[in-house]
C-alpha cells in the first residue's frame, strides 16, 4: 500500500476518485474456492485514466465488479481489504449506500452493449432513466457523438450499430455526473475502425465531465492509446504499475516485457517465429507460493519460487512512481526486453504454380433471407460477385470488418453455406476449417481422443494405427498424449484451438480454412497458435485461407492479402504491397486504425 498511495494524480483536481487497499477477493465456482485477487493496491486520481491490463484469468473483471460493488452473491465472494469510491467503503457499505454511490459516483460501460442495454426499451428512455430529463438525455446523446439524437431517441438497441450502442452506454454512464467510469473491455466487441472512435470518446468524456476512468482491457496498446497510467495485472496481483510511456517503453517486469513482445504489430518480422510467453507449466499450488509468474518467467531465480516480491519502486524515485513486483534487477529485465528476436527463421515456402489451384471461386453470390417476424422478409446480400483463386501451397489472408462477408466466403468454400450463384472448385482433399471459438467447435461430451479418432474412421486403419496417428497429431500440436483422455472443457482456450487444428490437419486437406482462429485468445496464446499454423503449413505444404479482422495478423499469415467489405473484394495483392501502398480508401482506413504502441525503446 505504502508506495502506491504516494503516486500523485496525473491531472485534474486534487485527491483521489477511488482507492483500493490490500484487496483480496476469493470466489467460489462449482464448489471450489479460488483466490482471484491477492493483495491489490491502487489509487485512481481525479480525472485520471488508469488502464488495467491483464490476460484472461488475471482478475481484472473481478476488480471492476468489486469497484461497482456488484460481485455476484452466487460466487460467495470473500473480501478483505478496502475499496473506497468517493469516500464510501464499498466492501462494508449497506445496500442503500452502495446504491447511492452507484447512482451518483459511478458509471459503467460493459464489453457488449447488446446484452447490457435493455432490448425491449427505446434507447432514449434508457438514457432518460438516468437523467430524468428529456432535454438532458438529448444533450448527452449528442455529447457522446450520436448524430440526430432526436431521431435516434426512439430506436431500439438492435437498430443501432455496435459503435452507436456503445455510445448509448457511454451516455448512460455519464448521465449521473459520475466521478468514476468503469469501462470493462469497451472496445473488444467492436470493429477496429470503431474501436479508435470509442477510445477517443472515453477521453473526451473524461475531459468534458471531469471524471476518472478505469479502462479494463487485455490489450496494452488499447490502454496505451488513452490511459495516463497502466497497471499490469497478473494472477490477481499488480505486476507493474507506471505511466504509459514507462510501461510501454521501459517495462520493468518480465511479464510486461513478455506481453509487449508477444503483441503483434505491423512491424513484427514476418520471417521469424512469433515470440510467445512460456506456457504455464506449474500447478496452481506452485503458482500460489512466491511470485505467481515464476513458473513462466525466463528470468526466474530460486527466490522467486518461495518469496512473493512486493510492489515497489525500482531505480530512481520520480514524481510519478513506476512500481514493479519483481526480484530481478531492472537491468536484467531490460536486457530481456532488448533480446527480442524470434529464434528459428521461417523460410518462405514454394508455391506450386504448375499444379491446379487449390481453390477457385468464380462469380460467387450469396443471399440470405432473414425472417424478421410476421411477413417482413429482409434479404442480406452477403457476397456480391467474389472471384478468388488460391494456388496450391499459397496462403491468403482475407481481411474485413464484421459484415464484410469474409466468414460467409469461408463457409461457402467449406460447403457449410450454399451459394446463390457462382462456382467453387476445390482440389482433391477438400477443405477443413478451424473456427473462431474452438470451445464450441469441439463436441463437449466427447473426449479429445474420440474427436480425433472420428476423423480417421473413413480410412479404416484399425485400432493400433489409429492410436499411432492420434499420438502423432497430439505431438505435432505440442500437447501431452494424456490429453486424448480429457474433454474439451478441461483444456484451456489455446489448447482447444490446437486440438481443432490437429483435427483439421491430421488428414491434410487441400485447403485449411481459418476463421479468426485466434481472435478469442490472449495475445501470447494467439501468437503460439499462429506459429503452429505457420509450422504446419510448412511441414504439410498446405494451402491456407486465413480470415481475420486484424491487419497485423493478416500480414503475418498470408503471402497475399485480400480486403473485403460489403461482400466484395476491394483490394488484393502481395502482403507488402497492400500494407505499404494501400490503394483502396477502405484499406487505408483499416491500416490507420490498427492500434499500435511503436517499437520497443
Amino acid at each position: 500500500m505504502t508506495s502506491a498511495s504516494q503516486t500523485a494524480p496525473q491531472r485534474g483536481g486534487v485527491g483521489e476518485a477511488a482507492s483500493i487497499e490490500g484487496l483480496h477477493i476469493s470466489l467460489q465456482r462449482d464448489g471450489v474456492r479460488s483466490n482471484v485477487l491477492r493483495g491489490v493496491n491502487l489509487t485512481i486520481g481525479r480525472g485520471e485514466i488508469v488502464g488495467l491490463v491483464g490476460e484472461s484469468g488475471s482478475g481484472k473483471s473481478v476488480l471492476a465488479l468489486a469497484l461497482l460493488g456488484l460481485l455476484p452473491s452466487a460466487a460467495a465472494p470473500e473480501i478483505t481489504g478496502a475499496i473506497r469510491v468517493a469516500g464510501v467503503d464499498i466492501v462494508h457499505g449497506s445496500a442503500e449506500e452502495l446504491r447511492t454511490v452507484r447512482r451518483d459516483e459511478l458509471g459503467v460501460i460493459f464489453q457488449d452493449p447488446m446484452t447490457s442495454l435493455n432490448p425491449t426499451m427505446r434507447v432514449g428512455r434508457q438514457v432518460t432513466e438516468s437523467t430524468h430529463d428529456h432535454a438532458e438525455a438529448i444533450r448527452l446523446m449528442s455529447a457522446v457523438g450520436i448524430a440526430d439524437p432526436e431521431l435516434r431517441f426512439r430506436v431500439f438497441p438492435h437498430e443501432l450499430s455496435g459503435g452507436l450502442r456503445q455510445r448509448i452506454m457511454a451516455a448512460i454512464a455519464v448521465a449521473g455526473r459520475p466521478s468514476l467510469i468503469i469501462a470493462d473491455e469497451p472496445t473488444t466487441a467492436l470493429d477496429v475502425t470503431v474501436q479508435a472512435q470509442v477510445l477517443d470518446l472515453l477521453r473526451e468524456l473524461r475531459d468534458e465531465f471531469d471524471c476518472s476512468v478505469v479502462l479494463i482491457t487485455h490489450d496494452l496498446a488499447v490502454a496505451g492509446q488513452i490511459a495516463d497510467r497502466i497497471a499490469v495485472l497478473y494472477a490477481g496481483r499488480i505486476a507493474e504499475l507506471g505511466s504509459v510511456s514507462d510501461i510501454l517503453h521501459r517495462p520493468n517486469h518480465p511479464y510486461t516485457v513478455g506481453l509487449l513482445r508477444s503483441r503483434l504489430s505491423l512491424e513484427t518480422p514476418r520471417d521469424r517465429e512469433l515470440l510467445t510467453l512460456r506456457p504455464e507449466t506449474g500447478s496452481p499450488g506452485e503458482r500460489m507460493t512466491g511470485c505467481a509468474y515464476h513458473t513462466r518467467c525466463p528470468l526466474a531465480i530460486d527466490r522467486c519460487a518461495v518469496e512473493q516480491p512486493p510492489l515497489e519502486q525500482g531505480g530512481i524515485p520520480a514524481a510519478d512512481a513506476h512500481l514493479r513486483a519483481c526480484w530481478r534487477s531492472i537491468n536484467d529485465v531490460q536486457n530481456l526486453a532488448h533480446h527480442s528476436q524470434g529464434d528459428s527463421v521461417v523460410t518462405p515456402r514454394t508455391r506450386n504454380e504448375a499444379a491446379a489451384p487449390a481453390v477457385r471461386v468464380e462469380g460467387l453470390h450469396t443471399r440470405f433471407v432473414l425472417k424478421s417476424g410476421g411477413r417482413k422478409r429482409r434479404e442480406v446480400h452477403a457476397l456480391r460477385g467474389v472471384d478468388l483463386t488460391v494456388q496450391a501451397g499459397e496462403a491468403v489472408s482475407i481481411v474485413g470488418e464484421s459484415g464484410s462477408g469474409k466468414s460467409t466466403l469461408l463457409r461457402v468454400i467449406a460447403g457449410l453455406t450454399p451459394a446463390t450463384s457462382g462456382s467453387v472448385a476445390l482440389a482433391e482433399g477438400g477443405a477443413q476449417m478451424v473456427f473462431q471459438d474452438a470451445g464450441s467447435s469441439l463436441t463437449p461430451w466427447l473426449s479429445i481422443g474420440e474427436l480425433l479418432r472420428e476423423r480417421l474412421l473413413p480410412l479404416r486403419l484399425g485400432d493400433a494405427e489409429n492410436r499411432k496417428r492420434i499420438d502423432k497429431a497430439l505431438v505435432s500440436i505440442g500437447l501431452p498424449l494424456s490429453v486424448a483422455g480429457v474433454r474439451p472443457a478441461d483444456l484451456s482456450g489455446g489448447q482447444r484451438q490446437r486440438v481443432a487444428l490437429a483435427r483439421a490437419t491430421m488428414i491434410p486437406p487441400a485447403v485449411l480454412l481459418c476463421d479468426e482462429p485466434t481472435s478469442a485468445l490472449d495475445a501470447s496464446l494467439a501468437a503460439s497458435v499462429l506459429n503452429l499454423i505457420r509450422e504446419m503449413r510448412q511441414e504439410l505444404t498446405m494451402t491456407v485461407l486465413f480470415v481475420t479482422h486484424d491487419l497485423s495478423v493478416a500480414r503475418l499469415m498470408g503471402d497475399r492479402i485480400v480486403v473485403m467489405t460489403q461482400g466484395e473484394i476491394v483490394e488484393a495483392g502481395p502482403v507488402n504491397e497492400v500494407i505499404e501502398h494501400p490503394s483502396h480508401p477502405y484499406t487505408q482506413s483499416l491500416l490507420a486504425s490498427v492500434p499500435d504502441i511503436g517499437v520497443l525503446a
Partner: protein
Amino acid sequence: MTASTNIAARRLGLPTSALRLHAGNRLSFAIVLLLGLVTVVALLARVIAPYDPIQSVGGLNLPPGSPDHLLGTDAIGRDLLSRTLWGIQVSWFASLLIVATGLVIGGVIGTLAGVFGGWLDNLLMRFTDLFLALPGTLVAIAIVAALGYSLQNTLIGIAVVWWPFYARIIRGEVRSIAARPHVEAARLAGISRPRIVLRHILPGVVPTAIVTASLDIGNVVLLLAGLSFLGLGQSAPAPELGADTARSLQQLLSQWWVPLTPGIAVLLLSLIANLGGDAIRTLMNSKR
C-alpha cells in the same frame, strides 16, 4: 464434481458436466434419493406387503395403528397397507412406462424432424400439432371405452396422447444443438450423418429429456389415478389407488382411513415425483 460421478456419466455417454454436484445441492440430491427409494418400494411391494391384498385377512374396518394391520383394514377385512403397496407398484411403474414410451416415440419423431428439417419436419410437426390439439384425457377415455376396460388399454390410451409433448421439446433441442459449431465441425470432418446424430447431437439432448420426463411423472401418476377413479383401470378385486378411493368413498365420514389411505399415497407419489423432477433439474443446471 467427484470422479465417480464423472466416470458414471461417461459410461452413460452423458455430458459429465450435467452430473457434477454442487456443494449447495445436497437437498436436491437427497430428494433424488427419495425418488430412488420410491422405486425400490414399488419394486419390492410384493415382498414387503405383509398380507395378500385380495384376501380378507382380519376384522372389518380396523382403524390405522391396529395390531397386525398398520394402516387398518377395509370394509371386507383386506389389509390396507398391502393394498396400498401393491397399488403404488402398479401406479409407479405404469407412470414410468408411459413417460418412457412418450419419450421414445416423441424422441424418435422429434429427432427425425429436427435433423432432417424441410418437408419431413413440417409433416411430422403438423401431425404432432394434431395430437396436441386433442384433449388428452378425453381421447384416452375414448380409446379405453373403445378397446374395453383394462389397465393395459388405459396405458395404451394415455401413451397415444402422451408423446406429442416430447416430440416438440426434443425437436427444438435437436435443432438448437444441430446449429452449433461443433456439429458443423463434425460435418466438415467427414463424419457420417447417423454418427453425427448419435454422437454429436443426441447426447446433448439427454439432460433436457431427463429433466422434462422426470417432471412429467407426477402428471401421469395423477392422470392414471384419475382415470382409475373413474373406473377405467384394473378390474374389481385388484388393488389400485384411484379405484380403491372411489370404491370406498361412501365410507369417508364413517371410516375415513379406508378411502384416504390410497388417496394420500397418490398425493405423496405425485409430490415426490414433482420434487424429484425439480431436484434433477437443479442438479443438471448447476453446471450448464
